[in-house]
């Protein structure tokens, strides 16, 4: 328990993840669902970015003159990985919003319960 503040980032990850997940499940508005999904994904970005950080580590660029001292670098790999995941997230959001536009055109609403009601009538 001594390192609770040290795990600050991970607490944020959990809070964001649960917030996003809750919004996805609990909200009937499709746009809010996409926003929730976005928050959910963002939490994973922070998870990856946090794990690459090393205490006292510098950016992973070779230091020309170290003066004999050892240089600690942060791990760049998780950051690069999450760049890919961010791109995937953007694509997902864009596709989700595009679908919502089409749903709005077809149904005239973006509320889940109203859409179900219209499908029941048809």
């Amino acid at each position, binding site marked *: 328990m001594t390192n609770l503040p040290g795990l600050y980032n991970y607490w944020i990850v959990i809070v964001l993840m649960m917030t996003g*997940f809750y919004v*996805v499940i609990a909200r009937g508005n*499709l746009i809010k*669902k996409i926003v929730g*999904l976005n928050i*959910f*994904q963002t939490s*994973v970005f922070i*998870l*990856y970015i946090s*794990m690459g950080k090393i205490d006292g580590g510098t950016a992973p660029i070779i230091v020309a003159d170290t003066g004999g001292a050892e240089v600690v670098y942060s791990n760049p790999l*998780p950051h690069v*990985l999450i760049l*890919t*995941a961010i791109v*995937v997230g953007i*694509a*997902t959001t864009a*596709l*989700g919003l595009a*679908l*919502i536009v*089409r*749903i709005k055109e*077809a*149904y005239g609403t973006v509320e889940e319960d109203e*859409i179900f009601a219209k*499908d029941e009538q048809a």
Partner: protein
Amino acid sequence: MIAAHLPALQIVIPLAAAPLCLLLRKGDLAWALSLLVSLIALAISAVLLSQVLAHGPISYELGGWAPPWGIEYRIDVLNAFVLLIVAAIGAVTIPYARRSIADELPESQLGGFYTALLLCLTGLLGVAITGDAFNLFVFLEISSLSSYVLIAMGRDRRALTAAFQYLVMGTIGATFIVIGIGLLYMATGTLNMADLGARIPALGANRTIIVAFAFLTVGATLKLALFPLHFWLPNAYAYAPSAVTAFLAATATKVSIYILLRFFYTIFGPAFQAEDLTLHSLFIPLAVIAVLVCSTVAIFQINVKRMLAYSSIAQIGYMMIGVSFDTVTGLTAGMVHLFNHAVIKGGLFMALGCIVLRVGTCQIDDLAGLGRRMPLTMFAFVLGGLSLIGVPLTAGFISKWYLVQAAIELDDWVVAAAILGGSLLAVIYVWRVVESAYLRPAPENAPDEVSEAPWSMLVPTYILIGASIYFGVETSLNVGVARAAAQFLLGGAG
């Protein structure tokens, strides 16, 4: 020279062809290019499988970076088998799609359709071929995003909500998988699957690893629509264009099962499961419920496409039963069924697509009297239905035979009974279609011009239906390769 780069070409060719389809604009040109690409992909996957069977696993270093630092494409018996299934279904679906899609989509969207289809093919092949955990996620998302687009192209407006629902569920599943991969990276510092498999046993009962295991499992089961995480599947399959349903039903869930197998056997290894969470206690109950409940739900569907979609969830239950037995016979049975079901369900959905093309719907009442009006299509459906039930001399029988054998080996009579019970339920839902098509007269007001489907759609349908009979008699490809893969997973992993 080229031969050494086949693993990369398997992915690069469809990936590069996809945007070209969009540029070609003309539907027929895009179709011809897709057909060419899918045939090349099939040829490559066949060569890769024969190489793996002859010389053992192939490792391909992408860009010349040695694993575990670079991304490695690693092909063993298991994924060579999955590659062949995906590529073969792709090569059969695209000739079929031409007429079917031209009927369902406006000309201006055809280029986009083939782009999305090729991207989906790329993604599925990529998931199967890669030996890198994060690369697997990227390919999974390529295939998922393109399949959302493909599903949304359905004529019914409910296709849009189905695609949206699938997008939400699929993204949650994929995000769980990324979380799992991230936690594994935190604990081991590597993303290469073989390297992960070598390092994890040394860490012992590490909580990070266990949490990673949980996230990966839930993420993958969401993607493969294991009961009770299957809610996205029936609507997605029911409202997608016919060719898309046939393609996705035969490939997407199968590739997800492959992901699960990869995680369990290559990354975590059998020893991990034995200590902490056994596949057996985790999945057998869910899989048995899936078989019984979803087969029963299928009986009550009035839309035949939805009926087959529920049947798919039940069949996924069969595969999971086989996979979860954790014995060579069980794994063989699971993988044989993975292959057979891809062939059977692909064929059935294609036959249904022929009906949709001619009749316009696939409500069970609208099928009345079709046995006389579309004899070839309905005959294909009946043959596929028999195979789905598991009548002897069909591929379905072979899968059920091995599944029951695996259950009896473990003295698990309850599961054996559930497998047989599921087959009986399948008799009922297949019979409802047969009864409507052959025993009921055509409705009075039915249009007279309903005729047989065009050859370009019947031939692919019969290739798959014929294969589902062929592999019920000559089992050296499906059972032989599946057994080799099962022995490889249980013996070589860890």
